[in-house]
């Protein structure tokens, strides 16, 4: 196979559709792909991440989370992560094309911050649902697993809220699956670090960056944490558990 067709088949294998699975972040393309100018433009288009639509209207989560917050959170904060991620990936690709390793390393924190922000928020929007549509409690496999770990859903929520409330600065509280042990875990993450870096599969995340609640709850993070369980989409959490379970 010629170099050009080899590069194309590598690119073809690396290609994933524009609508990305929301729990994954594509890894940078195999080195050397961009050095072929025929591939570079094609591959750049592949790299663009897009802001997912919310599964509901901005006002749908009221009164728990206001429309003002939802609009800002989605259109400003999440959108900025997506834009900054794309910009960082473009710079990374350009550095990679020149085999500029230092340039590549320089982009890694921006990719982690903004990529993490994109991953986390994409999960978050699906973890929530309007109050009228939310089931009041988990059921089936998820309920069983929660009861096994914490005794009851109430105990789980109280433990989750204590740990998440205690996060210093900006971060997230997560319910995750430890695939190795098959057990559920509560785990907090700082900044926008994705839960995957802690070796867990994210099932349910609660954003406790101040932008997630400040306009409504001000410094009363515990009040926000108490209220948010009214709009947790247990069905979505169950689906994620099913998807992640062997």
């Amino acid at each position, binding site marked *: 196979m010629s170099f050009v067709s080899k590069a194309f088949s590598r690119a073809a294998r690396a290609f994933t559709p524009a609508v990305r699975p929301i729990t994954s972040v594509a890894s940078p393309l195999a080195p050397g792909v961009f050095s072929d100018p025929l591939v570079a433009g094609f591959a750049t288009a592949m790299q663009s991440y897009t802001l997912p639509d919310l599964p509901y209207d901005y006002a749908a989560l009221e009164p728990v989370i206001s429309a003002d917050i939802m609009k*800002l959170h989605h259109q*400003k*904060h999440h959108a*900025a992560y997506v834009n900054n991620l794309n910009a960082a990936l473009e710079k990374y690709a350009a550095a990679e094309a020149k085999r500029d390793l230092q340039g590549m390393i320089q982009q890694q*924190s921006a990719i982690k*911050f903004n990529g993490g922000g994109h991953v986390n928020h994409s999960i978050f929007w699906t973890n929530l649902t309007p109050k009228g549509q939310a089931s009041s409690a988990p059921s089936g496999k998820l309920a069983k697993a929660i009861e096994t770990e914490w005794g009851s859903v109430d105990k789980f929520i109280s433990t989750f809220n204590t740990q998440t409330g*205690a996060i*210093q*600065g*900006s*971060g997230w509280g997560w319910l995750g699956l430890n695939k190795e042990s098959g057990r559920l875990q509560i785990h907090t993450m*700082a*900044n*926008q670090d994705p839960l995957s870096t802690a070796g867990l599969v994210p099932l349910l995340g609660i954003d406790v*960056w*101040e*932008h997630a609640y*400040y*306009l409504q709850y*001000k*410094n009363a993070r515990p009040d926000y944490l108490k209220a948010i369980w009214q709009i947790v989409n247990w069905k979505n959490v169950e689906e994620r558990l099913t998807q992640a379970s062997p």
Partner: protein
Amino acid sequence: SFIRPSLITFSIFRICRSMSFVLPDLPYAKDALAPHISEETLNFHYGAHHRTYVTNLNNLVKDTPNQDKSLEEIIRTASPGPLFNNAAQVWNHTFYWNSLAPNAGGEPQGAIRDKIIENFGSFETFKQEFSKKATGHFASGWAWLVLNSETKKVEIVDTHDAGTVLTDPKYHPLLTCDVWEHAYYIDYRNARAKYLDAWWSLVNWKFAEHNLHAVYELKRRKS
């Protein structure tokens, strides 16, 4: 004996050993920084956030050996965790209120101006770099203008979450800017860059000058 000579005009002190830390008064009225920083922001930032750090700190030191330590001592000796976080945030916020003033802002004069131009080339370059550091800090933290006693230069550093330059003996703090979201969300929502514009309209150069002179004075006494 607990009103220690300090590099900075304010001090969070106790009158006697058994008293708890107190939230220092704001150096100005709550509406004095408007329209750059609103009264509403100060009501929450000072009245709720800063006050809560003080309350938490008092609860954490009560009936422990730490209740006899000064605030700076606690910050310098505490391991990472709630005690450090609350103590550092008490100190950071007090330094922040003093870094702002009504009818202030603009460009510095005197020794601090000379030092900035000496180390950054121009005030404009310094301003751009400080704004870049402050707006670019990811998530919660602080941007500082410090005198680095090792390089003898004024420098811009950022700290994360409750981090403070107090824990690094080579850094002498001159000014700080809070970039936690609670510092600007009420007035500027996500637009941290706009908040920095406001900060430049309020920056208290007199405080920075005082802090710089205090470092020089301390060095003069030591030599």
